[in-house]
């Protein structure tokens, strides 16, 4: 009974705490000063048509590096907790249906292609490394559903993940040496605005993030289906 009242009390306090966000926050009429700087100078300085991408990759690049590190820590945690000491035979694996197998054979290359498109065009269209990486991981999930006995190569996964992480930090260090600061993307030529090869190092960095996020999520999936040793 006390428990019930305590829950109601806690929820009431949370409502009180969050209510000002609904009642007192007047909608903004124009961009905040920070956003004005990003939206006003961003396209000229960085050459990225997608302003969200220029914020994620360059202006707040350190935050993104931190987020990638958090993702890595979570993936390592999943691998640690789901580690199996002895290899257990998987209980009753049934073959996938012909429908799923045929559908996968048709859809898998398309999903992979869309994933790569999304992270290479992160500076032009909605999307980027995180979304592209998740798309690639979803393609792998579909493949593993259709081929129950298939296994993911840990070596390739670990090398992809480590190398993309190392190159990401190396690109940041190159920005420190050749441009204004760490993760500054202006050390590569800006190119023509709105084309694929433009915006300096932003597409390169975002592709590396895409590879890293994709391989990390595939690692998590592989651990969860008991592939870890």
């Amino acid at each position: 009974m006390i428990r019930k009242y305590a829950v109601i009390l806690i929820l009431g306090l949370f409502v009180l705490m969050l209510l000002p966000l609904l009642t007192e926050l007047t909608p903004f009429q124009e961009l905040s000063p920070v956003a004005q700087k990003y939206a006003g100078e961003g396209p000229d300085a960085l050459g990225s048509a997608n302003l969200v991408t220029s914020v994620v990759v360059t202006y707040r690049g350190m935050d993104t590096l931190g987020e990638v590190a958090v993702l890595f820590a979570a993936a390592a945690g999943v691998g640690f907790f789901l580690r199996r000491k002895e290899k257990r035979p998987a209980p009753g694996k049934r073959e996938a249906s012909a429908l799923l197998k045929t559908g996968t054979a048709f859809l898998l290359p398309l999903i992979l292609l869309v994933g790569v498109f999304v992270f290479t065009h992160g500076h032009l269209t909605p999307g980027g490394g995180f979304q592209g990486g998740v798309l690639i991981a979803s393609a792998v999930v579909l493949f593993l559903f259709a081929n129950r006995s298939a296994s993911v190569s840990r070596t390739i996964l670990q090398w992809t993940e480590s190398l993309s992480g190392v190159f990401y930090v190396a690109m940041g260090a190159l920005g420190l040496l050749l441009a204004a600061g760490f993760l500054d993307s202006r050390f590569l030529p800006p190119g023509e605005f709105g084309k694929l090869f433009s915006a300096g190092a932003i597409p390169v960095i975002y592709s590396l993030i895409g590879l890293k996020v994709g391989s990390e999520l595939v690692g998590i999936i592989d651990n969860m289906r008991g592939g870890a040793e």
Partner: protein
Amino acid sequence: MIYVSIIGFALIIIGLYGMLTRRNIIRIIIGFSIADTGIHLMMVSIGYLKGRTAPILDKAVDQADALQRVVDPVPSALVLTAIVIGLAVTALMLAYAVRLHEAKGSLDIHDFKELKW
């Protein structure tokens, strides 16, 4: 955009309620995911400006009038990464749940008394 704020607010409270009252660990994790989604919706709605469009420059949004046409890109960038981190944290919590079930053969949070006083 006040509707999105209200939906986000409701989702946060529903998720917290689920986390506080459910006993099954999987359901607690689902409650966390619901609250997480609510927080994302609230953050996006704070960055919205009435009648404006996505912060991507193309034929529809010229670079010259971008300041008058686009919404705030900073909350969008924050939510973009927060979604992926939420996914990874959910996966980590599910891995904990698997280990807890292996240890006690139960997913009821009341069976785990080691850290209770």
